[in-house]
Protein backbone atom coordinates (compact mmCIF):
# COMPACT_ATOMS: atom_id res chain seq x y z
CA UNK A 1 0.00 0.00 0.00
CA UNK A 2 1.26 3.44 -0.94
CA UNK A 3 1.68 5.73 2.00
CA UNK A 4 1.41 9.38 1.08
CA UNK A 5 1.96 12.19 3.46
CA UNK A 6 -0.35 15.23 3.26
CA UNK A 7 2.20 17.20 1.29
CA UNK A 8 2.41 14.51 -1.39
CA UNK A 9 -1.37 14.31 -1.61
CA UNK A 10 -1.55 18.06 -2.19
CA UNK A 11 1.14 17.79 -4.84
CA UNK A 12 -0.81 15.00 -6.54
CA UNK A 13 -4.05 16.98 -6.51
CA UNK A 14 -2.33 20.04 -7.90
CA UNK A 15 -1.05 17.99 -10.84
CA UNK A 16 -4.62 17.01 -11.84
CA UNK A 17 -5.67 19.19 -14.72
CA UNK A 18 -9.15 20.40 -15.48
CA UNK A 19 -9.41 18.37 -18.70
CA UNK A 20 -8.45 15.17 -16.88
CA UNK A 21 -11.49 15.65 -14.67
CA UNK A 22 -13.63 16.26 -17.73
CA UNK A 23 -12.23 13.10 -19.33
CA UNK A 24 -13.09 11.07 -16.24
CA UNK A 25 -16.64 12.45 -16.21
CA UNK A 26 -17.12 11.78 -19.94
CA UNK A 27 -15.84 8.22 -19.56
CA UNK A 28 -18.12 7.65 -16.59
CA UNK A 29 -21.11 9.01 -18.53
CA UNK A 30 -20.25 6.75 -21.48
CA UNK A 31 -19.97 3.77 -19.16
CA UNK A 32 -23.49 4.50 -17.91
CA UNK A 33 -24.57 4.81 -21.54
CA UNK A 34 -23.14 1.34 -22.28
CA UNK A 35 -25.31 -0.04 -19.47
CA UNK A 36 -28.36 1.73 -20.93
CA UNK A 37 -27.54 0.25 -24.35
CA UNK A 38 -27.43 -3.19 -22.73
CA UNK A 39 -30.85 -2.54 -21.17
CA UNK A 40 -32.13 -1.59 -24.65
CA UNK A 41 -30.89 -4.93 -26.04
CA UNK A 42 -32.66 -6.82 -23.26
CA UNK A 43 -35.79 -4.75 -23.67
CA UNK A 44 -35.90 -5.28 -27.43
CA UNK A 45 -35.67 -9.03 -26.86
CA UNK A 46 -38.53 -8.80 -24.39
CA UNK A 47 -40.64 -6.69 -26.76
CA UNK A 48 -39.94 -9.13 -29.57
CA UNK A 49 -41.27 -11.95 -27.42
CA UNK A 50 -44.50 -10.07 -26.81
CA UNK A 51 -45.00 -9.14 -30.47
CA UNK A 52 -43.36 -11.47 -32.91
CA UNK A 53 -43.20 -9.68 -36.25
CA UNK A 54 -41.20 -9.83 -39.46
CA UNK A 55 -39.03 -6.84 -38.48
CA UNK A 56 -37.86 -8.36 -35.19
CA UNK A 57 -34.55 -9.85 -36.42
CA UNK A 58 -33.58 -6.51 -37.96
CA UNK A 59 -34.51 -4.59 -34.81
CA UNK A 60 -32.48 -6.99 -32.67
CA UNK A 61 -29.47 -6.49 -34.94
CA UNK A 62 -29.80 -2.69 -34.71
CA UNK A 63 -30.02 -2.90 -30.90
CA UNK A 64 -26.88 -5.04 -30.80
CA UNK A 65 -25.01 -2.68 -33.17
CA UNK A 66 -26.03 0.23 -30.93
CA UNK A 67 -24.68 -1.61 -27.89
CA UNK A 68 -21.38 -2.45 -29.61
CA UNK A 69 -21.18 1.15 -30.87
CA UNK A 70 -21.56 2.43 -27.31
CA UNK A 71 -18.68 0.19 -26.17
CA UNK A 72 -16.56 1.39 -29.11
CA UNK A 73 -17.22 5.04 -28.28
CA UNK A 74 -16.25 4.40 -24.65
CA UNK A 75 -12.96 2.85 -25.79
CA UNK A 76 -12.34 5.74 -28.19
CA UNK A 77 -12.99 8.20 -25.38
CA UNK A 78 -10.52 6.41 -23.10
CA UNK A 79 -7.85 6.42 -25.82
CA UNK A 80 -8.39 9.80 -27.47
CA UNK A 81 -9.19 12.03 -24.53
Amino acid at each position, binding site marked *: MINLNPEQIIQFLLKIQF*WDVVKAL*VCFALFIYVLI*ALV*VVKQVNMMAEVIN*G*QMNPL*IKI*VAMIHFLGAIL*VLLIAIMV*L
Partner: protein
Amino acid sequence: MPDLYIAKEKEEPKKITAEPKAEDKKIVEPPAEKKTKKLEIDLVETSNPIAAFATKPIGVRFETQTDEEEIVLLLRKHWITNVPWICFGGLMIFAPLVLRWFPLLNFLPARFQLMAVIIWYLLTIFIIFEKFLTWYFNVSIITDERIVDVDFNNLIYKEISEAKIDKVQDVTYKMGGAIRTLFHYGDVYIQTAGTEPNFEFLAIPKPEQVVKLLNQLREEEEREFLDGRTR
Protein backbone atom coordinates in the same frame (compact mmCIF):
# COMPACT_ATOMS: atom_id res chain seq x y z
CA MET B 1 -112.76 -83.56 -30.44
CA PRO B 2 -109.40 -85.06 -30.31
CA ASP B 3 -108.14 -85.77 -26.89
CA LEU B 4 -104.68 -85.17 -27.58
CA TYR B 5 -102.37 -82.85 -25.77
CA ILE B 6 -100.48 -80.66 -28.03
CA ALA B 7 -97.63 -78.88 -26.43
CA LYS B 8 -97.36 -75.26 -27.14
CA GLU B 9 -94.54 -74.28 -29.36
CA LYS B 10 -91.67 -73.14 -27.38
CA GLU B 11 -91.31 -69.52 -27.50
CA GLU B 12 -87.96 -68.51 -28.54
CA PRO B 13 -86.12 -66.90 -25.65
CA LYS B 14 -85.70 -63.25 -25.97
CA LYS B 15 -82.32 -62.42 -27.10
CA ILE B 16 -80.62 -60.11 -24.76
CA THR B 17 -78.50 -57.81 -26.75
CA ALA B 18 -76.42 -54.94 -25.80
CA GLU B 19 -77.97 -52.77 -28.43
CA PRO B 20 -79.49 -49.73 -26.83
CA LYS B 21 -82.96 -48.56 -27.67
CA ALA B 22 -83.38 -45.98 -30.29
CA GLU B 23 -84.19 -43.28 -27.76
CA ASP B 24 -81.14 -44.19 -25.73
CA LYS B 25 -78.81 -43.79 -28.66
CA LYS B 26 -76.63 -40.82 -28.35
CA ILE B 27 -76.49 -38.58 -31.31
CA VAL B 28 -72.93 -38.48 -32.40
CA GLU B 29 -72.17 -35.18 -33.95
CA PRO B 30 -69.65 -34.93 -36.74
CA PRO B 31 -66.34 -33.46 -35.65
CA ALA B 32 -66.65 -29.73 -35.39
CA GLU B 33 -64.84 -27.84 -38.07
CA LYS B 34 -62.32 -25.23 -37.09
CA LYS B 35 -64.27 -22.15 -36.29
CA THR B 36 -63.80 -19.34 -38.72
CA LYS B 37 -65.85 -16.23 -38.40
CA LYS B 38 -67.55 -14.81 -41.42
CA LEU B 39 -67.24 -11.06 -41.45
CA GLU B 40 -68.85 -8.63 -43.79
CA ILE B 41 -65.72 -6.51 -44.03
CA ASP B 42 -63.35 -7.93 -46.62
CA LEU B 43 -60.08 -8.57 -44.82
CA VAL B 44 -57.08 -8.79 -47.08
CA GLU B 45 -53.83 -10.24 -45.77
CA THR B 46 -51.20 -7.57 -45.07
CA SER B 47 -47.55 -8.33 -45.66
CA ASN B 48 -46.15 -4.86 -44.86
CA PRO B 49 -44.33 -5.29 -41.51
CA ILE B 50 -44.62 -1.61 -40.55
CA ALA B 51 -48.25 -1.07 -41.54
CA ALA B 52 -50.28 0.98 -39.07
CA PHE B 53 -53.54 -0.70 -40.15
CA ALA B 54 -52.80 -4.33 -40.91
CA THR B 55 -55.66 -6.70 -41.57
CA LYS B 56 -54.69 -10.35 -41.08
CA PRO B 57 -50.98 -9.49 -40.81
CA ILE B 58 -48.68 -12.15 -42.22
CA GLY B 59 -45.98 -13.49 -39.92
CA VAL B 60 -47.20 -11.73 -36.78
CA ARG B 61 -47.95 -13.49 -33.51
CA PHE B 62 -48.27 -12.26 -29.96
CA GLU B 63 -47.23 -13.75 -26.65
CA THR B 64 -50.58 -15.09 -25.40
CA GLN B 65 -52.03 -16.08 -28.76
CA THR B 66 -53.58 -19.55 -28.89
CA ASP B 67 -53.13 -21.90 -31.84
CA GLU B 68 -56.71 -21.55 -33.07
CA GLU B 69 -56.83 -17.79 -32.57
CA GLU B 70 -56.38 -15.58 -35.59
CA ILE B 71 -55.29 -11.94 -35.65
CA VAL B 72 -57.94 -10.02 -37.53
CA LEU B 73 -56.50 -6.54 -37.17
CA LEU B 74 -53.25 -5.08 -35.91
CA LEU B 75 -53.16 -1.36 -35.23
CA ARG B 76 -50.41 1.15 -34.59
CA LYS B 77 -50.53 4.91 -34.39
CA HIS B 78 -50.89 6.59 -37.77
CA TRP B 79 -47.52 7.17 -39.46
CA ILE B 80 -48.11 10.92 -39.48
CA THR B 81 -47.70 10.89 -35.69
CA ASN B 82 -44.05 9.96 -36.30
CA VAL B 83 -43.32 13.11 -38.26
CA PRO B 84 -42.30 15.25 -35.23
CA TRP B 85 -39.58 12.87 -34.04
CA ILE B 86 -38.43 12.14 -37.62
CA CYS B 87 -37.98 15.89 -38.15
CA PHE B 88 -36.26 16.21 -34.78
CA GLY B 89 -33.95 13.31 -35.65
CA GLY B 90 -33.16 14.89 -39.02
CA LEU B 91 -32.29 18.16 -37.31
CA MET B 92 -30.04 16.35 -34.86
CA ILE B 93 -28.23 14.59 -37.70
CA PHE B 94 -27.50 17.86 -39.50
CA ALA B 95 -26.91 19.97 -36.40
CA PRO B 96 -23.11 19.38 -36.26
CA LEU B 97 -22.86 20.94 -39.74
CA VAL B 98 -23.78 24.24 -38.09
CA LEU B 99 -20.40 24.09 -36.35
CA ARG B 100 -18.76 24.91 -39.68
CA TRP B 101 -20.29 28.35 -39.66
CA PHE B 102 -20.77 28.80 -35.92
CA PRO B 103 -17.78 27.34 -34.06
CA LEU B 104 -19.59 26.80 -30.78
CA LEU B 105 -17.18 24.13 -29.56
CA ASN B 106 -13.99 26.07 -30.15
CA PHE B 107 -13.47 26.56 -26.43
CA LEU B 108 -12.81 22.79 -26.20
CA PRO B 109 -9.54 21.11 -27.13
CA ALA B 110 -9.62 19.40 -30.55
CA ARG B 111 -9.90 15.87 -29.10
CA PHE B 112 -12.88 16.90 -26.99
CA GLN B 113 -14.54 18.49 -30.02
CA LEU B 114 -14.23 15.17 -31.88
CA MET B 115 -15.68 13.23 -28.96
CA ALA B 116 -18.53 15.73 -28.60
CA VAL B 117 -19.58 15.09 -32.20
CA ILE B 118 -19.32 11.30 -31.79
CA ILE B 119 -21.37 11.37 -28.58
CA TRP B 120 -23.92 13.64 -30.26
CA TYR B 121 -24.47 11.10 -33.04
CA LEU B 122 -24.68 8.27 -30.52
CA LEU B 123 -27.45 10.12 -28.71
CA THR B 124 -29.17 10.86 -32.02
CA ILE B 125 -29.22 7.17 -32.90
CA PHE B 126 -30.54 6.33 -29.44
CA ILE B 127 -33.39 8.87 -29.62
CA ILE B 128 -34.44 7.80 -33.13
CA PHE B 129 -34.25 4.10 -32.26
CA GLU B 130 -36.17 4.52 -29.00
CA LYS B 131 -38.93 6.49 -30.74
CA PHE B 132 -39.21 3.90 -33.48
CA LEU B 133 -39.36 1.04 -30.95
CA THR B 134 -42.09 2.81 -29.00
CA TRP B 135 -44.13 3.25 -32.17
CA TYR B 136 -43.47 -0.22 -33.55
CA PHE B 137 -44.22 -2.21 -30.40
CA ASN B 138 -47.17 -0.17 -29.11
CA VAL B 139 -49.87 -2.13 -30.85
CA SER B 140 -53.53 -2.87 -30.46
CA ILE B 141 -54.59 -6.28 -31.66
CA ILE B 142 -58.06 -7.51 -32.45
CA THR B 143 -58.34 -11.26 -32.84
CA ASP B 144 -61.45 -13.30 -33.58
CA GLU B 145 -61.78 -13.89 -29.83
CA ARG B 146 -60.45 -10.87 -27.95
CA ILE B 147 -58.84 -7.46 -27.88
CA VAL B 148 -55.25 -7.07 -26.77
CA ASP B 149 -53.59 -3.74 -26.06
CA VAL B 150 -49.80 -3.68 -25.72
CA ASP B 151 -48.32 -0.51 -24.26
CA PHE B 152 -44.63 0.13 -23.88
CA ASN B 153 -44.63 3.56 -22.29
CA ASN B 154 -40.86 3.67 -22.31
CA LEU B 155 -38.06 1.16 -22.62
CA ILE B 156 -38.45 -0.23 -19.13
CA TYR B 157 -42.23 -0.29 -18.61
CA LYS B 158 -44.80 -2.44 -20.35
CA GLU B 159 -48.51 -2.96 -19.87
CA ILE B 160 -50.56 -5.59 -21.63
CA SER B 161 -54.32 -5.66 -21.23
CA GLU B 162 -56.85 -7.89 -22.91
CA ALA B 163 -60.57 -8.58 -22.92
CA LYS B 164 -62.84 -11.06 -24.63
CA ILE B 165 -64.93 -9.74 -27.48
CA ASP B 166 -68.14 -10.74 -25.68
CA LYS B 167 -67.16 -8.44 -22.78
CA VAL B 168 -67.21 -5.42 -25.06
CA GLN B 169 -70.19 -3.25 -24.24
CA ASP B 170 -69.73 -0.02 -26.06
CA VAL B 171 -67.45 1.13 -28.87
CA THR B 172 -67.11 4.76 -29.87
CA TYR B 173 -64.65 6.70 -31.95
CA LYS B 174 -63.56 10.29 -32.11
CA MET B 175 -62.01 12.01 -35.08
CA GLY B 176 -61.61 15.75 -34.96
CA GLY B 177 -59.22 18.44 -36.09
CA ALA B 178 -57.77 19.38 -39.42
CA ILE B 179 -54.78 17.04 -39.44
CA ARG B 180 -56.80 14.05 -38.21
CA THR B 181 -59.48 14.64 -40.81
CA LEU B 182 -56.92 15.18 -43.54
CA PHE B 183 -54.97 12.01 -42.77
CA HIS B 184 -58.02 10.06 -41.65
CA TYR B 185 -57.13 8.89 -38.18
CA GLY B 186 -58.67 9.12 -34.72
CA ASP B 187 -59.25 7.51 -31.34
CA VAL B 188 -61.37 4.46 -30.56
CA TYR B 189 -62.75 3.96 -27.05
CA ILE B 190 -63.92 0.52 -25.98
CA GLN B 191 -65.90 0.02 -22.79
CA THR B 192 -65.96 -3.44 -21.35
CA ALA B 193 -68.10 -5.19 -18.76
CA GLY B 194 -67.21 -5.76 -15.14
CA THR B 195 -63.66 -5.50 -13.98
CA GLU B 196 -62.21 -5.85 -17.47
CA PRO B 197 -60.09 -2.84 -18.43
CA ASN B 198 -61.37 -0.23 -20.83
CA PHE B 199 -59.37 0.27 -23.99
CA GLU B 200 -58.20 3.34 -25.80
CA PHE B 201 -56.76 2.95 -29.27
CA LEU B 202 -55.27 6.38 -29.85
CA ALA B 203 -54.46 8.02 -33.19
CA ILE B 204 -55.18 4.89 -35.22
CA PRO B 205 -56.01 4.96 -38.94
CA LYS B 206 -59.57 4.35 -40.19
CA PRO B 207 -61.28 4.34 -36.77
CA GLU B 208 -64.75 3.88 -38.25
CA GLN B 209 -63.68 0.61 -39.84
CA VAL B 210 -62.31 -0.57 -36.51
CA VAL B 211 -65.65 0.19 -34.85
CA LYS B 212 -67.51 -1.58 -37.64
CA LEU B 213 -65.28 -4.61 -37.36
CA LEU B 214 -65.64 -4.78 -33.59
CA ASN B 215 -69.42 -4.58 -33.86
CA GLN B 216 -69.43 -7.40 -36.38
CA LEU B 217 -67.22 -9.52 -34.17
CA ARG B 218 -69.55 -8.87 -31.25
CA GLU B 219 -72.59 -9.87 -33.29
CA GLU B 220 -70.82 -12.99 -34.45
CA GLU B 221 -69.85 -13.82 -30.88
CA GLU B 222 -73.47 -13.44 -29.75
CA ARG B 223 -74.61 -15.66 -32.62
CA GLU B 224 -72.09 -18.29 -31.61
CA PHE B 225 -73.26 -18.10 -28.01
CA LEU B 226 -76.87 -18.67 -29.06
CA ASP B 227 -75.84 -21.56 -31.28
CA GLY B 228 -73.76 -23.03 -28.49
CA ARG B 229 -70.57 -22.81 -30.51
CA THR B 230 -68.57 -20.87 -28.03
CA ARG B 231 -65.03 -22.04 -27.31
